[in-house]
């Protein structure tokens, strides 16, 4: 500081100037808010100040999360197509029994609200395959990225970046590839296969729904597993190497047991996300062909908002069902994380 020339003191760098400009609104805001807060502190005393700091956030929570959570039940036990609760007649458990009215629970066709049951069965199929392959591929990718490879940062970024893309962008990227005249069909015809109309075939649509959602979210789970792998003490591996232990054995005896808590967390997180699948698939397939890729959240959305007659009661009842499923999964998650933290 002593040998700084006067010129440098007089001419602040760009960064300093930027900070000065950026700090100005902060200072104004501080001035504006300080007086009322100081007054509040004088009136209430310092002991009540934490409530003041919590108030805005809790107010938002209350209005937009807690109140809706409670009136969701009110919606699910009333009928009609009015939005305001005082105009809706009480119908008791009618919405629920309507949803549950099935000849056989194994056959959506036999249900009065067959779209709901199709949604459930599609969601189960989706969750099963998506979570299984998601965990498998994230694990393999994490194991590979954990090795000493050149350009690891680059490869990690390559697998991670789709996580940041919006579901609409992800869906459009793949839709463009999978269209009738898309590049994938061009590839297929060039090696002598017939064109496949992916979005007309129910099985292919489900396949791509699963594939695209894995493509988009795999990086997130890979990152969690990679953090878990890097937390395994290296001496264990060194000891194994000295003993000349085979790699397969090292994996089954050291890596997998020590990674298991992280793997459980990943499985449960992936389950919670997969049950709520909507965005990418809605843009990619629109739930089609027919109802082949319509999932439970899309059922709630169309029933409550997109259909000609907005059936809020039925949508609310369905979301209560979904809420119960998620609640159970969350309890599992809490148990799993607690066990992980306890070691």
């Amino acid at each position: 500081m002593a040998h700084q020339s006067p010129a440098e003191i007089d001419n602040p760098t760009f960064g300093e100037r930027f900070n000065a400009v950026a700090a100005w609104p902060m200072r104004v805001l501080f001035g504006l808010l300080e007086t009322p807060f100081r007054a509040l502190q004088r009136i209430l005393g310092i002991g009540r100040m934490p409530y003041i700091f919590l108030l805005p956030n809790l107010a938002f929570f209350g209005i937009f999360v807690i109140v809706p959570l409670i009136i969701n039940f009110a919606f699910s036990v009333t009928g009609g197509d009015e939005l305001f609760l005082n105009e809706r007649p009480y119908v008791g458990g009618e919405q629920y029994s309507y949803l549950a009215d099935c000849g056989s629970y194994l056959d959506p066709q036999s249900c009065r609200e067959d779209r709901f049951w199709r949604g459930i069965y599609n969601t189960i199929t989706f969750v099963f395959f998506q979570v299984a392959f998601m965990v498998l591929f994230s694990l393999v990718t994490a194991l590979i990225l954990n090795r000493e490879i050149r350009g690891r940062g680059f490869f990690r970024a390559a697998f991670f970046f789709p996580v940041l893309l919006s579901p609409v962008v992800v869906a459009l990227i793949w839709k463009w590839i999978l269209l009738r005249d898309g590049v994938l069909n061009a590839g297929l015809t060039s090696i002598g296969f017939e064109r496949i109309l992916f979005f007309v075939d129910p099985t292919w649509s489900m396949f791509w729904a699963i594939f695209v959602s894995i493509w988009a979210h795999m990086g997130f789970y890979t990152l969690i597993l990679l953090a878990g792998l890097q937390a395994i003490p290296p001496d264990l591996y060194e000891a194994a190497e000295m003993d000349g232990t085979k790699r397969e054995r090292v994996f089954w005896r050291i890596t997998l047991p020590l990674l298991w808590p992280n793997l459980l967390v990943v499985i449960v997180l992936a389950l919670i996300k997969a049950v709520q699948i909507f965005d990418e698939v809605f843009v990619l397939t629109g739930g089609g062909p027919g109802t082949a890729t319509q999932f439970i959240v899309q059922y709630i959305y169309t029933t409550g908002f997109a259909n000609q007659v907005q059936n809020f009661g039925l949508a609310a009842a369905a979301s209560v069902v979904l809420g119960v499923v998620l609640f159970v999964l969350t309890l599992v998650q809490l148990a799993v994380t607690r066990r992980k933290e306890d070691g």
Partner: protein
Amino acid sequence: MADAQTASGRSIAGLLTARRGGASWHWTDVFTYVYLAFGVCLMFGPVLWLALSSFKTPAGLLEFPPTLLPLGQIEVEVDGHDKPLPLYKVTMEDGTVRELAQIRRIGIIAQMVDPNDPETSIRVPIASREPIREFRVAWENYTKPLERFNFLTYLNNSVIVTVVATLITLLINSMAAFGLAIYEFKGRNAVMLFVIGTLMIPITIILVPAYLVVTQLNMVNTLWAVILPGAATPTGVFLLRQYMLTLPRDLIEAARMDKASEWAIYWRIVLPLSLPAIAVLAIFSVMWRWNDFLWPLVVLNRSEVYTLQIGLNAFQGELDVQWHYVLAMTVVTLIPVALVFAFLQRFITTGIASTGMK
């Protein structure tokens, strides 16, 4: 040629087989590189394909099989014709190949003309001609939507939602985190439990009642309907509180001694010290808001208030999809996220790795 190939083959093989301590090969070594190569293609390929395609003309997009690069047909001015004519390479009946411009096409016969001899027209079957193309970028895919559609409005709405919502989130979340981290007060654990509990309530299960609340507040089809409901993120409170717990308490005690108000302690001491955590939350919030889909889809029904995501979805759902515009707009939607990723990747990955949230 053969020498060069073997030389390069040897050097690549040498690079791949170079191993620490001369340990022997293991199948996982081969698998690693095959997997990585395949993975990079699978992750980047689709995005590159989108970007390349977005520069193609509508005619170029219709081609099957598609060309890799955006190409456009060369057009030439010919005397006696007002408009430029498309140029073709024509194989004549005697086997010679000539470059001819097409005047019009009648059924399977094309009426062509030699640009150097505009007087005589030549009739050729269309099967014997092939368009002459050059590399051409269709910038109009990007500029047209700006003029013709509400694209700028969508962009504007998305920016407003993202910026305003992130500012509100940062303010109220950091205040709540400050309250929970710095003070001992009655009910603190209850509030903390409440915060963790609400962490698990996704919008998917309260769609209908949340819509009712927003309607009651007269916010449907305004940007506030998208901004406010998600502002009080439990994730943010949790993340900031954990960070603030690590700050030295002496600093706060010293400030109290100097008669600083609680607000001054929050604003002047704790906030600046929590900047790293606030930066992580800011990045997350920007991503959440920019990419938000289901909730805006429910509460925004008029085109003037659409965000980019909703507008893009509406475009791609039209009966006659204008893919050349959709692709270009998708690229524009992707750019902010790509920039965030390029510059702030480290923040994001450490943020996710340490909180397990996104």
